[in-house]
Each structure stands twice: as structure tokens, then as C-alpha cells.
């Protein structure tokens, strides 16, 4: 049952990825403007142009180009970046860890802030505190990450300049890292001075990404907590003499968390989508920032590669959430 569900999802996932590949390929081939013309020195001859076109496979028909590219992708060859003249997969893997670290920190913050607000709100049902949490989460939710980023830049970059508003790490530091997972590696190497520098750079973009999601979690989790808190088994726990906070943490939370979990999965993909502009805003050297440069430089192979990697990330997250839901939901587990 579970296995069957898994394979069906896996199949739809592949269909989706194939669809993404076709759409991105068609969209950027329609683009006016010649990527080759931009990389040539002035006075290049027609022969030079033709030679470069052939080198990047741009002299073949679109359908041919698509299948050549697809065959390459299936072998792990995403082509060569036109503007950076490096292997696309290498470039993507070089930047992806920065984005993953940022998105993960943002997700953890969103869950922590959102769950705290939800528990506080559910604990003080019907009071001014709950109303305050409702209003705050409603407003937080409506303001997107881009605007939060700008607000944070103003508050903590200019008004009270405590955090860095640009880059991933201070440029003057010597980095001993061998992977691109700087944050993880700095902790593992016990170089907490570097960890602190990384956190100082990451905090504001992460908060900007986390706030809208935190608000959604606060609203949904509070709602499910309130529903669960009226059920018999919770009333029983209360009669046994547990305090309201204990009742929520020990009894209600695990049953109320399931609907929130599904939602967090979908919202996490939105959060990752948001890294594109937030990274740009904070000059954070991640995948999204590179993607915008790739579009501006009309670097077709690089755009294709990045979009496909984002899409892969999205469908994998959805698959993971779906499986987790099936595992945790008793009705599906035994159904």
C-alpha cells in the first residue's frame, strides 16, 4: 500500500520534471537576443560565430537540441555555462549548499517562531493575547519575504547596524573549508568564530524568509490545537491535574501537528522559491543569486540547469512530505 503509493508518486514526479524541462527549454529558446553574440569580441568573423554556435549545439533544430540536452542531463552532463565557461553541474553544486543552508535555517526559525506563537495562542484562548497573535500573524502573512528583507535591512543594517546586510561571510576571513556547507563545516570543525560570522550574515535573509511561513504555522497549528483541546482524552489529561501547557505539549501537540506538517512541506517549497530574490537583496552567494545573473547574461545552459535543480528540489520535498504523512497517519498506514 505504502510502497505502491510511493511508486505512483515517483512516476508523477518524473512526469513533472519532464514537463519542467520542456517548458524551460521552449521558453528560453523563444528568447530574442543571441547569447553567442554577447561573448564575442568586437570584429569577430562569421566563421567564429558559426564555430561557437556549433560548439554549444545552437546550430541544430530545437527538438534535436532538446534531446541532446536531455540525454546529457540523464548522464549527469548539464552542459557548459556560456557566461562563466564552466561545467553547469559544478557551478550549481558550488552554490546549492549556500541556498540549502539558508533555507534550512529559515525553515527551523519559522517552525520555532510559529509553533511558539501557536502554543501561546492556544494556551490563552479567548484572551487579548490570542487576539494579538491573530492580528500579528495575519499582518505578517500578508507581507512577502522581499518586503521583510527590506524592512530588516533598514532596521538592523542602518538604524541599528548590528548585522551584516551583504554577502555570505566576511571577505577578509580565511576559510579552511573543503565543502560548500560553510555553516555545517564551521560547527564540525569547532570554528565558532566562523560560525558566528556566517550567522551574522545569514540571520536577516533567513528571518525575511521565515516570517511569512511562521505566521502560517502559527495560524494553522493554533487552530488544530484548539480543536484537539476539546477532545475527551485531552479533557481527561486536564482532569488528571496536568497544567494547560503540559496538556498541550504532552497530549495535544502530536495529534494537532499532522495537518501543519503537510502544509509546511508545500510552504517550504515557496520558501526556497523566495531565496531567489532574498539572496539578491542581501548579495548572498547562493543559487538564486546566480540564477538572476544567468538570466541577465542569457546563459541558456546555466538557466536550464538551475531551474531543473530547483524543480527537482521541489518535487523531492513534496514526495518526502507525502511519504511522511502516510507514515504518520494511522488511517493511511493500516488502510
Amino acid at each position, binding site marked *: 500500500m505504502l510502497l505502491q503509493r510511493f511508486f505512483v508518486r515517483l512516476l508523477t514526479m518524473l512526469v513533472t520534471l519532464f514537463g519542467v524541462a520542456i517548458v*524551460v527549454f521552449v521558453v528560453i529558446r523563444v528568447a530574442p537576443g543571441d547569447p553567442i553574440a554577447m561573448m564575442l569580441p568586437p570584429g569577430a568573423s562569421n566563421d567564429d560565430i558559426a564555430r561557437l554556435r556549433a560548439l554549444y549545439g545552437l546550430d541544430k533544430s530545437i527538438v534535436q537540441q532538446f534531446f541532446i540536452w536531455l540525454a546529457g542531463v540523464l548522464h549527469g552532463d548539464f552542459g557548459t555555462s556560456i557566461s562563466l565557461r564552466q561545467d553547469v553541474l559544478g557551478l550549481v553544486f558550488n552554490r546549492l549548499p549556500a541556498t540549502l543552508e539558508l533555507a534550512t535555517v529559515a525553515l527551523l526559525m519559522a517552525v520555532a517562531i510559529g509553533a511558539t506563537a501557536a502554543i501561546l495562542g492556544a494556551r490563552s484562548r479567548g484572551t487579548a493575547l490570542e487576539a494579538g497573535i491573530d492580528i500579528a500573524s495575519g499582518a505578517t502573512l500578508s*507581507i512577502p519575504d522581499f518586503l521583510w528583507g*527590506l524592512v530588516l535591512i533598514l532596521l538592523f543594517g542602518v538604524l541599528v547596524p548590528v548585522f551584516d546586510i551583504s554577502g555570505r561571510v566576511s571577505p577578509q576571513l580565511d576559510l579552511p573549508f573543503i565543502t560548500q556547507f560553510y555553516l555545517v563545516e564551521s560547527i564540525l570543525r569547532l570554528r565558532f568564530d566562523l560560525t558566528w560570522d556566517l550567522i551574522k550574515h545569514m540571520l536577516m535573509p533567513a528571518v525575511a524568509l521565515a516570517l511569512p511561513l511562521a505566521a502560517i504555522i502559527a495560524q494553522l497549528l493554533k487552530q488544530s490545537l484548539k480543536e484537539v483541546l476539546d477532545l475527551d482524552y485531552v479533557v481527561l489529561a486536564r482532569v488528571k491535574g496536568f497544567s494547560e501547557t503540559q496538556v498541550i505539549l504532552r497530549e495535544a501537540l502530536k495529534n494537532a501537528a499532522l495537518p501543519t506538517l503537510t502544509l509546511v512541506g508545500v510552504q517550504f517549497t515557496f520558501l526556497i522559491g523566495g531565496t531567489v530574490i532574498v539572496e539578491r537583496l542581501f548579495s548572498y552567494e547562493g543559487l*538564486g543569486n546566480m540564477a538572476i545573473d544567468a538570466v*541577465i547574461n542569457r546563459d541558456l545552459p546555466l538557466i536550464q540547469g538551475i531551474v531543473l535543480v530547483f524543480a527537482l528540489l521541489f518535487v523531492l520535498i513534496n514526495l518526502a512530505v507525502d511519504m511522511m504523512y502516510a507514515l504518520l497517519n494511522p488511517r493511511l498506514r493500516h488502510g
Partner: protein
Amino acid sequence: MDEARIARRASSPRLWLAGGWLLLALLAAIFAPLVAPQDPLAQDLMLERLPPFWLDGAEPGYWLGTDSLGRDLLSRLIFGGRIAFIVAFAAATSACLIGSALGLIAGYFGGWADRIISRIVDVWMAFPPVLFAILLVAVLGTGLSSVILAIAIIDWTRFCRVIRAEAMSQARMDYVESARIAGYGRIGIMLREVLPNVLPSVVALLSLEMGIAVIVEAILSFVNLSISTDDPTWGSIIAEGRLSIHQAWWVLVFPLITLILTVLSFSQFGEALKARFDPVLR
């Protein structure tokens, strides 16, 4: 019913506050040449980086100060509102029409139509939306119509998903069955019976989408990919403000406040309207 009445009463000040700001901003944009105190494009290096009126060094007539080229900030914000509202209305309406039509078809007819439309939605949802928008505008070429088209092409799925789910649940209701027995055709039922019932959701989403469209336009301006660089847009003013943040904070603060108020108003206005017109709540 009591709770519904409370919800409606609570939605009233929200409706008026949000609607009031939107109306004010819209009127200012429409009558921009009459309202704006200065020419939004006029540069004057003698007047560069003037602070807003309550600070020392402010000039009369330049209420919110000037940017690094000496252009009046308030006038630029008022004129920038024109592009923001055009994009909001045109892009959101287009996305709404495409998405609602496909959502109604998928939800009400089901079967193959539903399967195909749902697959397309899946593919669309696997794109990071901001990157998709930037990519589309780069492909279509910068300009007002490209921005509108790009937003519509990306965001129709928001309407499609909600309307599909609503149409599905409506299609199973008794009243649809009675209409079918009474001899109405499928399209007739869809337009006469199902559509009016999904309308409150559509209205709320439409208002929300207008706010999103304003943000997307600002993001595109911010990465220098929206309208021509001469016309002031809220996003291009923000981009300038981000650059001169340490010399002239007001160039970032005022467009930011304008954007936040507008986005908040669009979403609150939609929610309040939905609460008011939802047949179930009423």
C-alpha cells in the same frame, strides 16, 4: 450564526481602512499630474538628497525629500502608483480569468480534462515563481505588457487550484443534481449554479493577487527588468533607495511603507469582502 455575525462586524473596519488606502492611492495615481507637487522626472543636482519636510535642510514643496538626482520622492511615488495599479488590475484579472476557467473545467468535468490540467499545474508549481517571472520578462522583453503577461502566465495556478477544489465539492451537492434532473446542460449548470457559489473565493483571491502583482512588478523593477528605466515605479525607487541607504534612508523608507500598506490593504480587503459575501457565513 452568531460567530458569522461577529466575523462580519469585525471585518467592517478592516474593509474601510484597506479600501480607504487603496482608493486614496488609486485616485492619486489617476490624477497624478494634478496631485504631484513636482515633475517626477525633473533632475536638479542642487536639490540632491533633500530630507523629508520635518528635518533640517528640507525644501518647501519637496515633502518627502529627494533622491540622489534631486528628483522629488513624493511625485515619483504618486506616478509610480500608476504602473502599480495598471499591473495589479490587468495581471490579476488575466490570471483570474485563465485560472478560474481551467479550474471550473477541471473541477466540474473531472476525468481527462482534470488530469491534464492538474499535471500542468504540477509542472507550474515546480518552478520558483520569482525566477520564472524574471526569466519570462527577459524572454518577452522589458515593458509593461511583458510584466503583465508574465504575472498572468505564472499565477493562474493560484486561481485554478482553489476554483477546481471548490467546483469539485459544489458539483457533488444536491442542488447541482436537481438542476441536472431539471434538464439543464452541464455548461449551463456550471455557469448558473457552480460559478456564483465559487465567486466569493474568486473575489478574495483576485484582491490578494493584485497585491502579489504589485510585489512582483516591484521585484522585477528591483532587478532592473520591468518597465523602461525612465518611468518611476515603486520597485525602481526601492532599488535606488537600497543603493543610497546610508546617505538617504528616506528614499527606501517611503516606497517601502507605500508598498507594505498597499499589499496589506489588497489582502485584507479581499478577506473582508469574502467574509461579507460568503453565502455560508451570511
